[in-house]
């Protein structure tokens, strides 16, 4: 039955196929007709189709978010993943073990070894201390007392509740109680973590803190996480992939960027309207091809021409391998031309701000404001991979078309032309090369 030992690391650890769950007097019939396309309203007299024909795979180490409004079936879906609810049809395989229709003993084994859960309202045992709550899953697994308290202490430290071990849950704030819930699930040491609206009952500030902590823990421990939420911002922040549910059906599965930039239908589009795009989209999503760039070996004339053509007040200078060297400003370049020099090197200034392609837009506003040139986006080897003009940054926040151009007012083009004509040095000008 178990195939986990022979499985390939890239195989899904959790695989759901054609899963439906219906409630009511004749669940089988409701599920069948819902799968054939009947809507929930049409079936209302027969029963409730909570989840209809859901299929997805979750890879080891992935954070898979199921997003939907209340009543969309997401809570039912997550409860079928560990057999708290038995699917009406379809299959759920956890690390190779099929749990649809499995007997109680198999379900208990899967829950002890493979899947633990974090609950919306924490579901801590009020008569047990923090440490004993964290050790609960281990107690059920039959771990000896000393060993389980030691392991519970370790996860209590990991979630930052050191010093609170002997308190009762009622003495803790909501955020701390959910840390205990998280500790209990982590102590079980299962590869999969199901989180049912785990942060929805918390204050916004605490919620953000918990989300960040979850990402840290996940990076450290490599858990596979299925996270249920009704908050799209939370989904976008946490999810490697997001499944959007509506009326029991999964309407789209994709990365946060996919969902945001390419919504599958009007429903998803309407949903993502309210998303804080600045926290989801990254520099890499919106950057443009760098046009205002000259080579390190070019002269001031080339730079000025490039600025004139691009209506810009400065250009980026790159060295070999497109490595970003710095910026050259129009006034400096004009002075150089007036002096008759041919190398830009003396006037290259350090790049005011370079950002990485993974930075979210939210973190770009201040650099963009302070920078007089479009923000430079560099890769890990300092190569200039793109630029983000302020207009682009603004346009990315709304659903409109992407406008380009820069807002700094450049030196008027005729002024540049005049200057170029006055102090023409044909030989060097011919050698300059615009990149």
């Amino acid at each position: 039955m178990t195939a986990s030992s022979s499985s390939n690391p890239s195989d899904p650890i959790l695989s759901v196929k054609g899963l439906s769950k219906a409630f009511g007097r004749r669940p089988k019939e409701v599920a069948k007709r819902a799968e054939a396309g009947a809507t929930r309203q049409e079936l209302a007299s027969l029963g409730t189709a909570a989840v209809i024909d859901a299929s997805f795979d979750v890879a080891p180490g992935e954070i898979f978010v199921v997003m939907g409004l209340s009543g969309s079936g997401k809570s039912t879906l997550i409860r079928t993943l560990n057999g708290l609810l038995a699917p009406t049809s379809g299959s759920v395989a956890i690390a190779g073990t099929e749990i649809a229709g499995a007997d109680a003993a198999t379900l208990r084994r899967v829950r002890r070894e493979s899947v633990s859960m974090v609950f919306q309202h924490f579901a801590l045992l009020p008569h047990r201390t923090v440490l004993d709550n964290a050790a609960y899953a281990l107690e059920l697994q039959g771990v000896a007392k000393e060993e389980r308290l030691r392991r519970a202490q370790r996860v209590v430290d990991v979630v930052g509740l050191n010093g609170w071990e002997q308190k009762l849950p009622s003495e803790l704030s909501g955020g701390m109680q959910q840390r205990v819930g998280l500790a209990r699930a982590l102590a079980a040491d299962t590869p999969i973590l199901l989180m049912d609206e785990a942060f929805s009952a918390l204050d916004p500030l605490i919620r953000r803190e918990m989300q960040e902590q979850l990402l840290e823990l996940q990076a450290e421990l490599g858990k596979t996480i299925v996270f249920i939420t009704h908050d799209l911002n939370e989904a976008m922040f946490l999810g490697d992939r997001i499944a959007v549910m509506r009326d029991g059906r999964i309407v789209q599965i994709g990365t946060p960027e996919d969902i945001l930039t390419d919504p599958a239908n009007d429903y998803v589009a309407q949903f993502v309207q309210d998303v804080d795009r600045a926290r989801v989209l990254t520099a890499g999503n919106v950057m443009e091809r760098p046009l205002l760039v000259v080579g390190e070996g070019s002269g001031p004339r080339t730079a000025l021409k490039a600025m004139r053509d691009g209506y810009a007040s400065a250009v980026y200078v790159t060295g070999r391998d497109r490595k970003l060297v710095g910026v050259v400003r129009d006034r400096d370049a004009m002075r150089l031309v007036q002096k008759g020099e041919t190398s830009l090197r003396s006037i290259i200034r350090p790049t005011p701000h370079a950002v990485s392609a993974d930075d979210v837009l939210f973190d770009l506003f201040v650099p963009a404001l302070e920078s007089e040139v479009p923000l430079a986006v560099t890769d890990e080897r300092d190569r200039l991979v793109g630029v983000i003009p302020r207009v682009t940054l603004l346009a990315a926040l709304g659903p409109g078309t992407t406008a380009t151009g820069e807002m700094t007012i450049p030196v008027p083009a005729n002024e540049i032309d005049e200057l170029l004509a006055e102090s023409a040095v044909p030989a060097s000008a011919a050698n300059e090369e615009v990149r």
Partner: protein
Amino acid sequence: MEGFRIPIGEWAATALNWIKANLDGLLEFIRTVLGGAVDGLTDGLLGVPIIGIVVVAALIGWTVRSWRLALGTVVGFGLILGMDVWTPAMQTLSLVLVATLIAIAVAVPLGILAARNDTVSAALRPVLDFMQTMPAYVYLIPTVLFFSIGVVPGVVSTIIFALPPGVRLTELGIRSVDPEKVEAGQAFGATPGQILRGVQLPLASPTILSGINQVIMLALSMAVVAGIAGAPGLGKEVVAAISTLNIGQGVEAGLGVVVLAVYLDRVTSALGGRAQNRGSLLSIIARRRAHALAA
């Protein structure tokens, strides 16, 4: 409608007579066990020096509630002693304790069963209604018939009458445990037995304990009825006072019941909400220990 009558009374009498005739061994066994238990406990209570009982009762009061209850216990028990009803009071106390223990031993498992199974719950409900609303005196007829005059019919009638709230509140307590907490137990792979012991019973315990409190109160209220059946104790004193219109004897015996009732109620209700009793020895010890651990 002339002549129409459903002979339920006759049926009941026939059934009871049949039991009397055919299950004599069982009835004899019950009589021996219950009679022995109550008499043994009474002898024990009366064998200990009075001061010892008062001190232990006061200490129990302090342990679960407060020093005020301990003081009240000393005053109340002193009153019983002063009215010279100590012996009947101890007889009543042992009848109540034995009846309560048996009622709880039956009621709690039944309540658990009813909480886990809707059919059992639905079947039990009318039976419990019947047991609770049938006038208590009626139970004396078959029990006296089965066990003859004395303490045993009193105990059996008391058990039947006092049982229902124990079952009801146990079921209610378990059914009203937060379903997410039960789900948490399941989600971490707990067996049904582990969920019962580790989640449902501890979380339902305040409700179950208030059910037990109700059982004890009802058992005490049956003390007088048991007196009619000839059970020795405060009830018998009351019955005697009624038949001779002896006001003094009636008031003294009645006050004895009141003192026992108040004491047992305060102690058992304190068990239900231990956290609130900051003055109790238990919570003082718990705080000390928490303090020592934190230091």
